[in-house]
């Protein structure tokens, strides 16, 4: 075990002299500041991604209608004050791209990964602070490149976030030229940012855990971020490769994905989903970790089946490499191959079920406190259950034949990504806000935001299952063009109105963050009486995280209501009363 060496490395940071504004807030090498930077970058992008969703819902409720207020947007989003077929395609492409690559990933991996890993394993910073800074700034550049595509002739990418070739490979097929090129370049650049981040996380977690922080004493969120970083490290190069080939096809006259020159369109799908399915778990594993922390803390109970939770994370990560073909059942891929992907996909439900049952087990005989963080974490579990169960329909190849590319899929993905990842993010922000900003987040605003979001979310996305059962295709801007979809129009209207409420409610979240940053009640070191190591540092922690020595760890992260302690928590850093407690 290298934990003594780890302390030495962690302790190697000399006392810091005061850094200037630029080094503190802009080009910071401090993992906590970089984490906050990722958070604010992502919140900004979330506003844009959310706006795209609002425009789509506006169009789906009132297709082909002019709204004079749309005039304020660039021509790439509206045409003569209306959402047209072409701008609609750009809207959903950019909505998904921004939400996946610039909101959920930066918050879960960039923000929480950066902020939590050193604090929770007992390190003074990341293994490579400069690389960490570079990771954020490269990510920010990727964001600028992506946003700039709104202003180039032809508008932003319009081939869907999946960018299936040949549609994405030949400019005339979408009518988008530079928008798609910039899309590819932006995500290649973002991939570099993520790679730097993931190398840093893996190195830090393996080498810099404090004394006593054995692997099986790590909090589940650290396990989740660790496994996520490994997935990122292995999955992103595949996407980068695919994007490079796509760029060559678009700009260099090659035919990797174009059959006219002997290329293969389905190759793109294999490469994309070989990255894309691990990516799905990259976006859910950290949220699962967050939910585990929050649920254990506010149930005042050890997480039920800690080891099986860890094994489930590993199993999900392992299986995530074997299921990509389930996105391609109807693609013309050999149907026999479809059968094997169906089997592996059904099997990946098992570790997800284990996690769900363990969360329920954690609540059992707990002492449940309904904080904003807890409400969001519980809603994560409830929504993830729906998203997981609806996944079984599309795992079943014959059923998928009917519901593939319909709103059933849209419902499923939003139950997992919004109901799952985003509620996980809300829970995480509410839970660690005191540590991040030194002030408590306003609970009243937090709960108001939660309840409106929870209701509006379900009103928005649940009816999409019904649209899908009615055969409503995704990615069509005007359902009234189809006679068989006409009975579904009132549902579309209902969804749009709910979506507007959902969108508006997010301003409460933003307002709460801003208000609480300045006016929130000052937070103590450990406001939730939690066990994990970050709560032993000041709120917010200064440079180097702990003013004195880095605390050592004496026990697992979830010793809540332990018979060994009077209080209903027993922090990891508290020196044991019994000598035996130090042994694992």
């Amino acid at each position, binding site marked *: 075990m290298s934990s003594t060496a780890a302390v030495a490395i962690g302790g190697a940071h000399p006392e810091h002299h005061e850094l200037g504004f630029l080094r503190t807030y802009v080009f910071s090498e401090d993992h906590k500041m970089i984490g906050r930077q990722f958070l604010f970058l992502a919140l900004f992008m979330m506003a844009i991604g959310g706006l795209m969703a609002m425009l789509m819902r506006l169009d789906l409720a009132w297709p082909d209608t002019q709204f004079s207020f749309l005039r304020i947007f660039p021509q790439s989003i509206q045409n003569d004050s209306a959402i047209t077929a072409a701008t609609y395609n750009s809207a959903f492409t950019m909505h998904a791209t921004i939400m996946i690559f610039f909101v959920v990933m930066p918050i879960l991996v960039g923000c929480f990964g950066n902020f939590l890993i050193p604090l929770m394993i007992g390190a003074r910073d990341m293994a490579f602070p400069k690389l960490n800074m570079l990771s954020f700034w490269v990510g920010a550049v990727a964001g600028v490149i992506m946003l700039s595509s709104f202003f180039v002739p032809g508008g932003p990418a319009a081939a869907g976030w999946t960018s299936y070739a*040949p549609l994405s490979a030949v400019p005339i097929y979408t009518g988008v030229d530079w928008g798609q090129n910039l899309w590819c370049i932006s995500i290649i650049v973002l991939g570099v940012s993520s790679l730097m981040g993931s190398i840093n996380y893996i190195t830090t977690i393996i080498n810099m855990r404090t004394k006593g922080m054995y692997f099986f004493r790590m909090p589940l969120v650290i396990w989740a971020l660790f496994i996520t970083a490994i997935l990122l490290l292995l999955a992103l190069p595949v996407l980068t490769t695919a994007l490079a080939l796509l760029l060559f096809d678009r700009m260099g006259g090659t035919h990797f994905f174009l059959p006219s020159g002997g290329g293969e369109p389905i190759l793109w799908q294999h490469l994309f989903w070989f990255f894309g399915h691990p990516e799905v778990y990259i976006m859910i594993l950290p949220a699962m970790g967050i939910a585990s922390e929050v649920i254990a803390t506010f149930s005042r109970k050890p997480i039920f089946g800690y080891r099986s939770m860890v094994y489930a994370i590993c199993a999900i990560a392992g299986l995530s490499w074997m299921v990509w073909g389930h996105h391609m059942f109807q693609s013309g891929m050999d149907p026999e191959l479809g059968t094997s992907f169906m089997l592996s996909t059904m099997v990946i439900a098992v570790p997800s079920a284990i996690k769900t049952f363990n969360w329920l087990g954690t609540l059992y005989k707990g002492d449940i406190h309904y904080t904003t963080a807890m409400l969001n974490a519980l809603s994560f579990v409830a929504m993830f259950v729906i998203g997981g169960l609806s996944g079984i329909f599309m795992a079943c*190849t014959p059923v998928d034949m009917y519901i593939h590319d319909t709103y059933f899929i849209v419902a499923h993905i939003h139950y997992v990504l919004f109901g799952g990842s985003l509620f996980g993010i809300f829970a995480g922000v509410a839970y660690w806000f005191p540590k991040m900003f030194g002030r408590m987040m306003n609970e009243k605003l937090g709960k108001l935001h939660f309840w409106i979001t929870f209701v509006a979310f379900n009103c928005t996305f649940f009816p999409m299952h019904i649209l899908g059962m*009615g055969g409503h295709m995704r990615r*069509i801007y*005007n359902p009234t063009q189809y006679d068989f979809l006409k009975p579904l129009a009132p549902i579309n209207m209902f969804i749009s109105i709910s979506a507007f409420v959902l969108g508006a409610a997010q301003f409460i979240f933003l307002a709460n963050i801003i208000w609480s940053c300045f006016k929130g009640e000052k937070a103590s070191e450990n406001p939730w009486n939690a066990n994990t190591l970050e709560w032993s540092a000041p709120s917010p922690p200064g440079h180097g995280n702990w003013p004195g020595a880095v605390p050592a760890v004496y026990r697992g992260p979830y010793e809540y209501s332990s018979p060994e302690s009077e209080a209903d928590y027993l922090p990891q850093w508290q020196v044991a009363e019994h000598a035996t407690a130090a042994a694992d």
Partner: protein
Amino acid sequence: MLEKMLEFMYFPHDVSTFGPQIDWLFTLIFWITVVTWIAVTITMVVFLVKYRTKPGRKAEYIEGNTRLEVIWTSATAVIMIILALMSRSTWADIKENGPAGQVFYNVTAKQFNWEITYPGPDGKLGTKDDVTIENEMHVPVNQVVRIDLASKDVIHSFFVPNLRLKQDAVPGRVIKVWFEATEIGTYAIPCAELCGFGHSGMQGTLTVESEADFQKWLKDQYANANQ
């Protein structure tokens, strides 16, 4: 009963031979998931109410239960694997083994139409007298139709909701598709895969008619083609 339920859930009326198998699997998964969801949600709500914080009560220190872990892991695994095995034969029937064809067409997708090629009076595809019509597919009822599906430009997806049929059309490939329509009527053939700015609205019509009507229609098309 099944039909009523599906109708209630906005399922388009099924008119294919394999549709009932798909709907049956859908319904099976529907009930499995609904029962699971209700069980999980009720358990959760009961715990949330029963174990809400109360002054003077401490949570019970429970670290886990290996027997429970084994039970729910194996139960989930068994259900999922059985489900996969049950779906396998339906999938193979639809995508691999299909019955011998009686009627043969080529369908070629392009931005943003379906080109349907009918064999000419010689009854053979790929000869000079073939007739190609955009977006109008006529088939005789209760006969196995076999289609060679291709695309000229981007990926499209041949989707007939009433047949529960969907298959991507991929440029550079010819993909075999079959169906047998069981009821006379007209049904939509939308494109289900994003194929560009004209994707929304790309649709054809499938007309299922009696053998006599079909032959008559075909003759009319031959006559039109020769004009």
